[in-house]
């Protein structure tokens, strides 16, 4: 009995008094870990969810809503899921992802009859939506062009900065948004492109620029492409809204097609988060146009090599939905219809919002609301005005004044216009 007591107390003593095993000592492991700042975009939705006001409006995160303010599952997606359910074996996809899905996705970006697809000159891998495509490209850029930088437009989706930062690629910016006109600072953009060292990497939004909604015109894209040629720059297109801008995917890919016609070897990030409503499935594609098939095979192998220690191979489900839809002419045609409906609803809401503000007698011009394109409207609201919208009217948006038009409905557009008018009428 005594022996046991001694043994027990001895072991307890070893456990507790040893400076190595005491909890007090252990808690120093994480002493240096600071709380991370809230993500500016996703944090908005969190705050919105926590708000109990019946009037609240979420025009923060760029996820499409129907006119009742509800998320939408596309009919083509539901049908695809019905066909897929229970049929497939969930074996690992190859590291490059679903071949079928990638094939169909390339057609969307490069054109159905693209010579580059036919000649197998495109290195392409399935990616974790647009974020994943950008990240793998950024890592690829770091590994194979280690001295290079990335030129990022001002402003841009905030996560672009995080992506290239974590890939340890130094960033520079180029002029893009013109606050005075709430349009494109074309001269500033061209100057920056001209002044960048030859062979620089540029991040371009193919259509429906996020967060401004300001896109170059076709003519401007042609000029940009010519200047890129003269400077031998590399164009990396982030295309997250194909179909969402004009309602016509082919038209929305115009900037890319122009660059391809002009002979550029580009990179593209594509996402199905918005245009197929597959947000949570994380399905997209990274492609890099190469000089020939051999190089495409080589580059693809290196893209896979980057993916393997990140996630091994990409998730299957979303890719199956995409290839089921795009591989079936009927479903594909249904999808195209549904994309147009979504885009048209947004265009309609832009018109209504603008007209409502004008009717309220706002002293400001709201022309930009209808000139801008895609899911977002760069309202021109200041952070202080945005804060007032949130605290007084329970309207949630990111502090840069970006309004997600997808969150505007016939039910809330009047309330929104009124609130905006109230916080801006004295400016």
């Amino acid at each position, binding site marked *: 009995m005594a022996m046991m007591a001694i043994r027990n107390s001895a072991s307890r003593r070893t456990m507790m008094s040893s400076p*190595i*095993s005491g*909890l007090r000592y*252990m*808690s120093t*492991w*994480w002493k*240096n*870990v*600071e*709380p991370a700042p809230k*993500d500016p975009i996703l944090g908005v*939705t969190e705050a919105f*969810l926590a708000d109990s006001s019946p009037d*609240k409006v979420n025009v923060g995160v760029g996820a499409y809503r129907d006119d*009742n303010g*509800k*998320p939408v*599952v596309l009919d083509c997606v*539901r049908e695809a*899921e019905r066909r897929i*359910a*229970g049929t*497939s074996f*969930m074996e690992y*996809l*190859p*590291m490059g992802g679903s071949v079928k899905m990638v094939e169909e996705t390339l057609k969307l970006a490069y054109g159905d009859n693209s010579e580059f697809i036919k000649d197998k000159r495109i290195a392409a891998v399935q990616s974790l*939506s647009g*974020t*994943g495509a950008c*990240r793998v490209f950024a890592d690829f850029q770091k*590994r*194979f*062009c280690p001295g290079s930088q990335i030129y990022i437009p001002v402003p841009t989706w905030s*996560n672009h900065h*995080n992506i290239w*930062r974590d890939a340890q690629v130094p960033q520079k910016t180029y002029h893009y948004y013109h606050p005075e006109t709430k349009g494109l600072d074309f001269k500033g953009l061209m100057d920056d492109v001209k002044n960048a060292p030859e062979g620089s990497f540029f991040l371009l939004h193919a259509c429906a620029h996020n967060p401004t909604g300001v896109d170059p015109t076709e003519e401007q894209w042609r000029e940009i492409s010519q200047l890129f040629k003269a400077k031998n720059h*590399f164009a990396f297109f982030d295309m997250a809204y194909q179909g969402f801008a004009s309602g016509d995917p082919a038209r929305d890919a115009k900037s890319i097609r122009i660059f391809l016609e002009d*002979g550029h*070897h580009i990179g593209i990030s594509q996402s199905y988060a918005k245009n197929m*409503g597959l947000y*949570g*499935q994380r399905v997209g594609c990274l492609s*890099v146009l*190469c*000089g020939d098939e051999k*190089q495409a095979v*080589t580059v693809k192998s290196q893209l*896979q090599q*980057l993916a393997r*220690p*990140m*996630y*091994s191979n*990409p*998730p*299957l*489900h*979303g890719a199956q939905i995409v290839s089921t839809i795009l591989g079936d002419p009927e479903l594909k045609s249904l999808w195209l219809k549904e994309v147009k409906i979504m885009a048209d609803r947004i265009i309609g809401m832009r018109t209504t919002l603008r007209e409502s503000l004008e009717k309220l007698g706002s002293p400001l011009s709201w022309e930009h609301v209808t000139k801008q394109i895609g899911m977002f409207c760069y309202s021109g609201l200041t952070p202080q005005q945005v804060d007032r919208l949130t605290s007084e009217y329970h309207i949630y948006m990111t502090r840069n004044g970006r309004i997600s038009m997808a969150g505007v409905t016939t039910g809330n557009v009047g309330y929104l216009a009124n609130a905006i008018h109230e916080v801006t009428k004295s400016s």
Partner: protein
Amino acid sequence: MASSMLSLGSTSLLPREINKDKLKLGTSGSNPFLKAKSFSRVTMSVSVKPSRFESITMAPPDPILGVSEAFKADTNELKLNLGVGAYRTEELQPYVLNVVKRLEALASFSSLLLISFIHFLNRMASFQAENLMLERGDNKEYLPIEGLAAFNKATAELLFGAGHPVIKEQKYVATIQGLSGTGSLRLAAALIERYFAGAKVLISAPTWGNHKNIFNDAKVPWSEYRYYDPKTIGLDFEGMIADIKEAPEGSFILLHGCAHNPTGIDPTPEQWVKIADVIQEKNHIPFFDVAYQGFASGSLDEDASSVRLFAERGMEFFVAQSYSKNLGLYAERIGAINVVCSSADAATRVKSQLKRIARPMYSNPPVHGARIVANVVGDATMFGEWKAEMEMMAGRIKTVRQKLGKDWSFILKQIGMFSFTGLNKAQSDNMTNKWHVYMTKDGRISLAGLSMAKCEYLADAIIDSYHNALLYWETPIEL
């Protein structure tokens, strides 16, 4: 064995120096991915300038996933794939668990139900339902960066046991849904790089090939601790303890929770106690990779006993989990990283930083697999069915082991999906080239890919390769 990935594939494109030593990628001045200087330029038409990626070399085929690709290309009837660790039935077919099939069938129906439910709730202006819906991710909206809450809760409970103090109210464990085991390991590696500058990870010799890639790409230095003893085809326990003791204080020790990959050799419960002792003594941080919970012994709880032992000790540690094998959800990439902290505050901060790492990698994780796991674990009937199916899968593998073990008793002492045969590279090559048996070059076979019917064929192949490989292949193969 733990051979450098660079030694496989098109070696002719790589500078010779790379082949000679096991280069730790990203740590030296020269970039092993770029070709040596002289190479021919591709002639192109006038309007197209030479690519800036001209100097990029072909990456070698992955030593594990590349095996399956070679297997697919083989037209021989007798071919056998013992490469990648994916479970097969006795008929050598992939296996979708019944619970998963049922859930998937329900999913499409339930999304219809859900839409009408949502419209109903909308009329009630209930923000809580919306909260719940977004929370559950049923509408395919983005999950939060940390993943599906129901999944995170379920996965921590599975690992530590439902009533465990560390997860009571989930305060002390930071759990983030990750992209299966790989993605979860990568998040942890990035956290280590960011907050434990200079700290090293010790990995077993050998270990899963992708562990090194993960730490290399995350720029975390690593070294090996002795593990496999080729003489006994067992655990080099003395060597393991010695190497852990010798590591600088505060190192991370990567441990396989159960069913060690690739050897199939696990420490005994007594040995686990000693391992915990020495880790505590040296103030190291344990880092568990749990990819086979339930698959090793057939029991979820038993397979988690090593992790739970460490939790009992009040230690702070990492655990990466994967549901690829035990729920057959390979392709959906579902797993989790858990960081056990000694305070709720620390867990909160750690979780926020893990999210900050995930956001620029993929923003938020895929929903499909998470929902399946959460639903299976959350429903008593389905959970029971799953446990039964897992026992069946583990049982089949044990049976195959027993059949093979009649000739090779060491196979009986190993556990889990894999078996280290002790064959060297030349012998493994003979297995493939002569017998169309696909396995990894380190001598690892996946018993999950083997049926009772094929055991004799495999036995013949092994015996032939063991004795005769060096006769068939005259040129010694470089490692």
